[in-house]
């Protein structure tokens, strides 16, 4: 009988508005009790003094690369990296090879995750066949197979008519359509944010308007169709303004922002480090500050890593050819705790954006420590100082802009279904 008692942590549960030092008892994969000085027989005990006890973190946006690009990552290594970062669940994008646009592929991912991954894996299926932006996928069958949302992610649906139908049809299955909103004709080969940095370096610029225009289009289509639109990795002030206005007008829109867009700017590319190449690109300090403010005031609902592993030999290509993306599972907690340290957000609201809101957006279990809730728990030591070495991390890839940096804050325990799957002292346990 699986029984785990987490003692004397600061319990932060947005679902029940709890912020108090207490004990948490997990029994048989469920939250059994929350209270002071709980007593229980035959339990394993975790001392969480000085730490935060939170409902398990859920990463809405990641790339696990399996099937097809296992040299970058697979469901097992990606799942272990997620666990080591404090995530009890991750959603994985459909741009695998073959594309996850078929119930059999969704089945495969779920089956593989059950065997290989210590954390829950929620497949996001393609919105159109082959990510080609033309024929919509079998959403009902995909949802039945376990898909939790739909997205063509980086292969933005440029045809507004197709996007309209996809949004309309998604109401049948009540799942979010996730948009990577960038107008390809405006991106026009841009590899860094269009601004002083692109001008100095002579690299093709990707303008903020490319994101703003597509966010505005998709919000209008969401309003027209009544569908749930989720805007991935918001990076510009302009896009945030559109989202805020649309939500005020009653549009069903949610949004996420990445740790890198919350903390880094386009100046990260000044040394031509391809680990600073990401889509959408790192933006100006003004955009970054707007993202921080929007996350804190609730305009942006969630933090999502967009964990995008690429092999070293790919990132060693020149800045134009190197693929965009950076890994993020293992650094996310430390990086975004910056917002708490700066007192821009309270710990409870921070946890809401790491756990409760992502679960709500995907309509999956988790995000709560209420009695009877699924026993997915993340314990965070917000002051633990450590040095990040991606080579020693669990991901197969090392493309991180935080490599070698000393970071503050780290998940110490990741608990999935009442079982400890990661412990910072002992590593991955299953």
């Amino acid at each position, binding site marked *: 009988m699986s029984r785990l008692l987490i003692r004397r942590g600061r319990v932060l549960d947005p679902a029940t508005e709890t912020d108090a030092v207490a004990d948490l008892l997990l029994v048989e994969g469920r939250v059994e009790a929350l209270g002071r000085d709980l007593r229980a027989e035959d339990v394993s005990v975790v001392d969480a003094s000085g730490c935060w006890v939170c409902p398990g973190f859920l990463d809405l946006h990641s790339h696990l690369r399996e099937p097809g690009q296992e040299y970058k990552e697979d469901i097992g290594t990606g799942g272990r990296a997620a666990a080591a970062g404090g995530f009890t669940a991750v959603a994985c994008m459909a741009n695998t090879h073959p594309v996850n646009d078929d119930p059999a592929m969704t089945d495969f991912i779920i089956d593989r995750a059950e065997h290989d991954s210590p954390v829950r894996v929620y497949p996001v299926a393609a919105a159109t066949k082959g990510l080609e932006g033309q024929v919509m996928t079998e959403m009902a069958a995909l949802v039945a197979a376990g898909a939790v949302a739909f997205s063509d992610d980086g292969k933005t649906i440029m045809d507004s008519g197709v996007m309209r139908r996809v949004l309309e049809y998604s109401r049948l299955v009540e799942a979010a359509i996730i948009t990577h909103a960038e107008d390809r004709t405006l991106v026009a080969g841009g590899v860094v944010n269009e601004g*002083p940095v692109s001008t100095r370096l002579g690299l093709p610029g990707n303008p903020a308007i490319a994101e703003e225009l597509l966010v505005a289009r998709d919000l209008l289509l969401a309003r027209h169709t009544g569908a749930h639109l989720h805007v991935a990795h918001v990076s510009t002030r302009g896009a945030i303004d559109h989202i805020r206005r649309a939500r005020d007008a009653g549009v069903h829109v949610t949004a996420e922002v990445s740790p890198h867009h919350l903390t880094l700017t386009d100046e990260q590319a000044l040394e031509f480090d391809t680990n600073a190449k990401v889509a959408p690109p790192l933006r100006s300090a003004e955009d970054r500050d707007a993202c921080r403010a929007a996350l804190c005031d609730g305009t942006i609902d969630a933090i999502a890593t967009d964990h995008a592993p690429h092999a070293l030999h790919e990132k060693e290509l020149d800045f134009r050819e190197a693929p965009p993306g950076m890994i993020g599972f293992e650094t996310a907690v430390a990086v975004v705790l910056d917002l708490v340290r700066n007192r821009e957000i309270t710990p409870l609201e921070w946890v809401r954006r790491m756990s409760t809101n992502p679960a709500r957006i995907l309509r999956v279990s988790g995000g709560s420590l209420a009695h009877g809730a699924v026993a997915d728990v993340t314990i965070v030591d917000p002051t633990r100082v450590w040095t990040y070495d991606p080579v020693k991390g669990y991901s197969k890839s090392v493309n991180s802009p935080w490599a070698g940096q000393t970071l503050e804050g780290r998940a110490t325990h990741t608990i999935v279904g009442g079982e400890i799957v990661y412990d910072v002292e002992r590593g991955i346990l299953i």
Partner: protein
Amino acid sequence: MIGRDLLGIEDLERSEIERILDTADHMREIGTRDVKKVPTLRGRTIINLFFEASTRTRASFEIAGKRLSADVINFSPGSSSLKKAESILDTAKTLDAMDPDAVVVRHEVSGVPRRIADVLEAPVINAGDGAHEHPTQALLDCFTVRQVKGRIDGLTVTIVGDILHSRVARSNIHAFRKLGAEVRVAAPPTMLPIAIEETLGVKAFTSLREALDGADVVMALRIQNERLAGAFFPSVREYSATFGIDRAKLHYAKEDAIVMHPGPINRGVELSHDLTDHRPSVILDQVRNGVAVRMAVLYLFAGRAPRAAGPPGPGAGA
């Protein structure tokens, strides 16, 4: 003290630029001798690593190296064949293992010389990267202006053409500004990079007439073939009518203004025929001075005492 690599003018101090130009003054004399060769770099190996096709710049570097008695090896892998197959850094490390005394790099993407310099033991000289920098071109342009005008301080230099895609423009903006000139750029709005005035410290014009008013130096840039027809301007005819330099438009500039072009020239597009071939154009002086400036660069960067053997240390960048 000059750094290990020559990656861009942006990294140089004014005194460093002047030292290179002064050294080039001495080198120029060698080119006027019967026997145009000195033993300065005898026993040194210089690799011209040109990922992007080039005839003029490569020939200029090759002649410069040979006049200093260096062994010059040309290696032109061609970007397309390399792109997918082998990483640029692997190619560079392979060449580095042959112990060259300098590697001269050209690549069609900004930043490649910088990334190569990060992993190489040998000094890296940038011979042009993407739309980023082309430092030896700017040095030879400054050298030519100094030769003809006697100074750079206080001059007004107007660069005309596709600023957005031009490494020559960026390097020249840095170089002429550091040497005390006022720099202006003139182009159709589609070819002016965003925020150029505050980012690079120039005045930007879309009126050629205003940009040339009072200019001492008029530098026309080449319109790249792939942009001759397309998204950035409607037609060659319209470009040439609005931004092509001919004698009539040159009247907007100072009476004794000189005309420059980094070559190769699209005759009748950026410059009219007669301006290309006659004064006040100094285009062939630029080419001639290019050899002297590159001799100076090779002497200063490839001519140092060889480093002690051993693996490169961490953070070997400039």
